[in-house]
């Protein structure tokens, strides 16, 4: 029977270890009265680059809020605590950590991680516990069509990106007749690929080629060769930075080109232009936000320029739309707290739904599905290895050029 005794004690030890860890976390959480925001983040794994961007701006925001005494809740100011965990780019982990944040750390709000897929997972947990979840990097309407009542997104629907782009390009290059679309089979890139094909057809273009490539594709040669054979006037490729750098390099190797080449999200990220150097020149794209805009509004950063300066001083680089949108997500919470003046879950949820604010990132007002309302989104192009804005007219700083031969 001695082996049974040992087994039992081993089991108890394991269990005790687990329990102790849980208790420690719970004890630390109860120590002070603060606003707690939980964020499952991809700090390692496939989405680490994007996760780190969220991490930077959220920390900047929290630091600034706390330096000013905290957030106004009723007649007192409360400090903000951001609790982050690395979910290692694994969906299962993300939902587990969201649960941990709600149960152990007792967070009042959740920030959703990068990407539409993982946003869905985290928002599902938030919905069950009725914790408001702010998603700053999910733009696919399919994320917001699940009748979740506690999910709000600061990006505008990506449908708005396609129609305006087709219109602008047709104006500039009236001889554009055919388009070839290659999209990554993943929530956001797929919806962009399908959206552009629909918008192009609606405005009289012929879709000469349209295919999706699976996540993790390491070679686009076959698809690019097929595209070359159709001699399109416009090549439109969607995916994330690594996919698009690879596609652009292979286009060069195979001699595939067109007067217009668009890559989404490509040039929205500085990693793209840095990775490609001269090859990036001429590539167009659309984005949700650009630091050349000049919005003013409430919050810790009163103007776009103020945010830009501080970001640049802190990191040495330029912020992109992920930085802008995620930093603005904090303002949504700040505004809701100020208006309700309490920490009541239901009141806060309703207050967020009624958000109508101006920020450095632009206006934030949620539609019935919880998404930020559509607005004019910037269309950008790489010229001389820097990002120029082609539209909308208010922030335009360059004319469109044809793809260099």
């Amino acid at each position, binding site marked *: 029977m001695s082996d*049974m005794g040992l087994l039992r004690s081993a089991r108890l030890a394991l269990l005790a270890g687990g329990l102790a860890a849980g208790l420690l976390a719970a004890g630390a959480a109860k120590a002070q009265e603060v606003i707690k925001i939980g964020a499952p983040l991809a700090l390692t794994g496939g989405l680490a680059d994007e996760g780190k961007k969220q991490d930077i701006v959220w920390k900047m925001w929290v630091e600034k809020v706390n330096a000013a005494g905290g957030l106004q809740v009723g007649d007192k100011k409360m400090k903000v605590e951001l609790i982050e965990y690395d979910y290692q780019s694994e969906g*299962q982990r993300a939902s587990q950590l969201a649960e941990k944040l709600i149960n152990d750390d007792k967070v009042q709000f959740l920030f959703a991680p990068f990407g539409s897929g993982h946003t869905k997972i985290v928002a599902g947990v938030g919905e069950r516990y009725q914790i408001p979840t702010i998603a700053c990097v999910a733009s696919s309407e399919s994320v917001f069509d699940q009748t979740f009542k506690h999910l709000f997104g600061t990006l505008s629907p990506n449908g708005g990106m396609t129609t305006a782009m087709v219109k602008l390009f047709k104006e500039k290059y009236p001889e554009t007749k055919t388009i070839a679309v290659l999209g990554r089979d993943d929530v956001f890139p797929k919806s962009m690929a399908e959206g552009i094909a629909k918008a192009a057809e609606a405005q009289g273009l012929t879709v000469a080629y349209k295919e999706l490539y699976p996540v993790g594709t390491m070679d686009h040669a076959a698809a690019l060769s097929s595209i070359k054979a159709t001699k399109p006037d416009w090549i439109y490729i969607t995916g994330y930075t690594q996919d698009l750098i690879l596609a652009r390099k292979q286009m060069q190797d195979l001699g595939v080109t067109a007067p217009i080449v668009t890559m989404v999200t490509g040039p929205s990220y500085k990693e793209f232009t840095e990775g490609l150097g001269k090859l990036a020149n001429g590539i167009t794209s659309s984005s949700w936000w650009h630091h050349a805009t000049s919005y003013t509004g409430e919050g810790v950063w009163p103007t776009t320029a103020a945010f830009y300066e501080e970001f640049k001083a802190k990191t040495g680089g330029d912020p992109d739309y992920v930085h802008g949108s995620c930093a603005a997500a904090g303002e949504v919470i700040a505004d809701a707290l100020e208006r309700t003046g309490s920490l009541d879950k239901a009141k806060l949820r309703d207050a967020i739904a009624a958000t109508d604010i101006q920020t450095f990132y632009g206006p934030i007002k949620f539609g019935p599905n919880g998404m930020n309302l559509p607005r004019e989104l910037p269309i950008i192009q790489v010229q001389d290895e820097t990002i120029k804005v082609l539209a909308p007219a208010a922030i335009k700083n360059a004319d469109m050029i044809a793809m260099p031969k």
Partner: protein
Amino acid sequence: MKPLPLYASLVVGLAILAAAPLYGDNYVVRTAAIVAMYGALATSWNFIGGFTGYPSFSTAAFFGLGAYVGALCQRSGVPMVVAWAIASVAVAAFAALLGGILLRLRGHYFAIGSIAVVELCRLIVSSWSSLTGGGDGLNLPLVQGTPEDLMRFFLMVMLVILAASLLVTILVDRSRLGFGLRCIHQNEDAAAMVGVNTTAYKVAAYTLSAVFCAAAGATYASWTGYIDPTDSFQIVLTVKVVVMALLGGAGTILGPAIGAAAFVLLEEVFWANFIDWNRAILGLVIVVLIFFLPGGLLSLRRRLMPGGAA
């Protein structure tokens, strides 16, 4: 292990997990459910990897397929529990057919073939958009109820799957099948020569290693309410399960489940305390454990009490 202590520790272990709602909050209950889930996966792997000695890496394929079959059934209106059952049966049939082909390979070749199954399933599911939604993934109807009730419910379901897999392990261990599988492990040619139908036995082991994974996958899909190809067919999941089984003791009855519990708890502890270094520390712990305890945690018994156990 003698039968009585074996049953006793099995019951105690399951009871500790089942009682999680009594002593812990939802996070602890969730961890218990994850322990049960991985326990079931590792115990399943044990049939082919432990008893038979075939290094299979197909766990994630069965788990993912189970999730997808279950999700598709549920979306077309099949009640949840029935959908889980259909997923288990369908994936078991798939494994039996696949096993007939794949199990002709041995050693490293089989290992590589079984990894390819995971990638292939992922690619097919992700490309077959009309059926599976491709990269968009699938939404499942959210199960209604308070978070506490739901968590308890899914803990119980995972425990039932774990208990079933352990029960079948005990039955196999005592039967001709288990004996035959061990013969194959030691020397496949010799086993064939003395009259063990090696192909049939191996296919049976492979199928058993699939059925509980599929059930766990289908349950998991209903639990999260959203699945996509990248998360459903994860190579990391496959590797983790094998590490768990080795950690506890491959080829033993309780070893894989104990390994799963130890692994999940270690992971949680390192996570909570060393956010930046948790993966490195976990990796180190695994290397040390496997290096110094090649027989798994269960072999501690023998080391600590030379006279104590068999």
